[in-house]
């Protein structure tokens, strides 16, 4: 029997770093940070970055905040470059297929790009308005890209009579906040019982609802928008709601959550589906049988990976932090041998700014069944709350109280008992946990941007084929 000498294996890494070919599909946050990390890791081989948007990689969080307010032009959120890349950029061209046998990415222009290692970072897109004819009316928008933001900003700057935002997740709520800052009449229609309910539950949703109303938002919960009507010029003018009411509107923004960009992986045999591309904690993609691949990695909004803190359920995280750290870990693991590989086990973290309140969170709130407001004052919109599941602390959220987040992060990391011990001062009141009131994430109301998607790596169901004797 022969064994490989460790020296030879190490040589493979050196050689791969010098001559390997890495292809990244998706030229946004996760893709760019992964590319930079690859170079930092000493990868000197050929690096190709494919993106269907023609702009340089840019940052999305400002789009629903500074850009809509008109403070920053839509094309001014280009992501800072952390280092030289020396990469072959293929911008403005989509990947349309993946051939795992010949190890090639197929492009819309007919080109084929060979790879030794592939990173899938194609993220998500906005869920479009369900009725394409209505969705095509002038004045109907979604918000995901810089172009979207530019068009929407112009429409808001034109002082529409009323803006209707359909869907009160984080982005929808941020947009409503901007509308009020701009002095625009705005209606928010949300199918769930309140804003942010999918991400933070009904207790926090009630507070978010109060905030919206205090700031003059016409918030309608428990209703859906059933139809949009246009005028003779094809501009949207009216919306019909499920409660039978109608609204005169000039701008409608569909903020209905996202769709994962997995279509180009059709037929490639990967565990790609509705909730993204399944991968292990080291960012390696699973195939449809739940077998981990050696050459294909996944990062960012499109990744779906099991998380030790959440009973190894597969987690999708549409958060900025997750794209950055996921990209970095994927890059590291792509050029490392097995003993040096690292897990991407983020403590999920996010932030949002709306109605003058800085909302920050850690952990996975929808995993929880209970909540307790621990510190501060709900009335003053300055408080911290912890989420628990079966006696463990699993998440926390702060409203204008972000300096306490680190404490809760540490509690979550060690699965500390829930409720947490009472603080020594500035207690929010009664420390008895109450139900957190989360809707079923699979019901597609409430727009969660963190979803626990069960234990099945493929979410299409792997067929179990007993070995033939």
């Amino acid at each position, binding site marked *: 029997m022969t064994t490989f000498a460790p020296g030879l294996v190490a040589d493979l890494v050196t050689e791969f770093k010098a001559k390997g070919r890495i292809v990244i599909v998706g030229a946004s946050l996760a893709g760019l940070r992964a590319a930079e990390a690859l170079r930092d890791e000493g990868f000197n081989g050929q690096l190709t970055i494919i993106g269907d948007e023609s702009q340089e990689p840019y940052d999305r969080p400002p789009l629903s905040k500074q850009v809509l307010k008109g403070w920053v032009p839509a094309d001014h959120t280009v992501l800072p470059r952390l280092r030289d890349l020396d990469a072959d950029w293929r911008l403005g061209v989509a990947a349309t297929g993946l051939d795992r046998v010949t190890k090639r990415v197929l492009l819309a222009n007919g080109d084929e790009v060979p790879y030794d290692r592939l990173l899938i970072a194609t993220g998500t897109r906005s869920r479009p308005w369900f009725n394409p004819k209505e969705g095509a009316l002038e004045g109907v928008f979604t918000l995901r890209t810089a172009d979207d933001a530019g068009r929407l900003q112009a429409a808001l700057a034109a002082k529409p009579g009323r803006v209707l935002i359909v869907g009160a997740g984080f982005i929808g709520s941020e947009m409503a906040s901007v509308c009020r800052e701009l002095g625009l009449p705005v209606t928010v229609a949300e199918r769930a019982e309140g804003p942010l309910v999918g991400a933070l539950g009904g207790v926090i949703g009630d507070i978010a609802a109060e905030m919206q109303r205090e700031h003059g938002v016409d918030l309608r919960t428990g209703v859906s928008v059933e139809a949009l009507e246009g005028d003779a010029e094809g501009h949207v003018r009216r919306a019909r709601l499920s409660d039978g009411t109608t609204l005169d509107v000039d701008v409608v923004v569909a903020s209905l959550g996202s769709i994962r960009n997995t279509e180009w992986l059709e037929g490639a045999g990967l565990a790609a589906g509705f909730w993204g591309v399944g991968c292990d904690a080291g960012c390696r993609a699973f195939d449809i049988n739940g077998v981990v691949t050696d050459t294909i990695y996944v990062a960012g909004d499109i990744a779906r990976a099991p998380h030790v803190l959440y009973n190894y359920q597969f987690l999708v995280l549409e958060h900025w932090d997750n794209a950055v750290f996921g990209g970095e870990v994927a890059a590291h693991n792509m050029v490392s041998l097995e003993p040096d590989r690292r897990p991407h086990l983020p403590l999920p973290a996010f932030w949002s700014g709306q109605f003058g309140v800085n909302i920050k969170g850690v952990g996975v709130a929808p995993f929880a069944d209970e909540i307790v407001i*621990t510190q501060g*004052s709900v009335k003053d919109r300055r408080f911290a709350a912890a989420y628990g599941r079966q006696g463990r602390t699993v998440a926390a959220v702060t409203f204008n109280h972000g*300096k306490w987040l680190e*404490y809760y992060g*540490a509690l979550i990391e060690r699965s500390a008992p829930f409720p947490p011990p009472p*603080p*020594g*001062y*500035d207690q929010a009141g009664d420390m008895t946990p109450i139900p957190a009131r989360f809707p079923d994430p699979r019901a597609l109301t409430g727009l969660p941007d963190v979803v626990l998607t069960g234990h099945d790596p493929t979410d299409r169901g792997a067929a179990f084929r007993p070995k033939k004797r």
Partner: protein
Amino acid sequence: MTPETAWAEAMRFENRPDPYRFFDELRKAPVARVADDVYAVTGYWELLALAHDPRVSSDISRSPVAAKRAAAAKPPPEAEHMKAYGDQPSMIVSDPPDHDRARRQAMRHFGPPHTPDLIPSMGPGIEQLCNDLLDKATGQTRIDIVDEYAYPVPVTVICKVLGVPREDEATFHRWIFDAMAGVDLGPEAATDEGRARAEKGRASVAALKQYLQGLVESYAGKPGEGLLSKLVNDDSPDGPMEPQEAASNALLLLVAGHDSTVNTISHCVLTLLRNPGSIERLRSRPGLIPFAIEEVLRLESAVQFFPSRSATADIEVGGTVIPKGSAVFLMYGAANRDPRRFADPSRFDPQRPDNEHFGWGSGIHTCFGGPLARLEVNLALEVFLRRVENPRLVVDPPPYRRSQVFRGPQHLLVDYDRIRD
């Protein structure tokens, strides 16, 4: 060595130039009981956890240390009399929500988002001050970095920021000096001299407080320049600050607003001169200066700890349970040299990666004045590096000031060839 002994040695005056050997000893238990009702935290991770734990209070009236000091005071503590008079604690010794409110009220007139331009606008004036001080030193070949350089800059700056008349400096300087010498947490506190220092310190605090009370009251209703006037005449959502509370915070801002900056400038010069080649390195790569300053803060921590904190519940940390009611000293200086967090922790390395030290504290009481202090120390060091030719230490270690909390050289003599233009 028992934790008690290591602690007493670390606090002893003669060990002020290097308490770190004793901190290393103490860190064998990262959280250790070092005296009755007193726990010292010297481990990085343990300190990080406690600095963010809402069961650790900064409210000085809850601390057994404060209670003991008050009880030791004769004549009976002015605390009683001050309470009757309506004395209000400053933000650094209070808890939320009062802490948060006071900090917001003060920050409004100091930094972003409401006052983004104040600190940047001070840059040219600070640089001018530094240059003027070195101009004065052109005819000579020796300078006391503390008295002739590090002290005058921040004290002038903070007077301007707060609206405290610069001409009163000589008066309040003495009070502050005595006040700090009076707070002794070491074995010498129990000596006759220690008691006398404590007495003098208390009187000085009272005098300083009265002075600032008068100043703040003079601003109430008659707005003038500076933060103190704005504090008591404000119409922000939190309203104006009550004069009593404004006076306490004025005292905090005046003292914290220059003293640690002085010590940091002095320690920067001391550290660079102790590490051959580093002066040349920073001169050739000025971009490293901000990193070098952070590294000095890690190594020498101008605020070694702040003795306000206590546990409001039994807290388990680092294998120890801190009993409810105990004083909790977060030893920033010691944790900044925890080898579990910082490789080769006693080495000065301006390019140290991931240098998240506790020089500015951690948690909600994290330094309020960081951006101003950074600007001052940066400019002072830049000007020093540019103009002082061939600087050399005269005595090492230099004589230190008595305070264990605000640690820094009393004097720092440096010889040089000449001051460049």
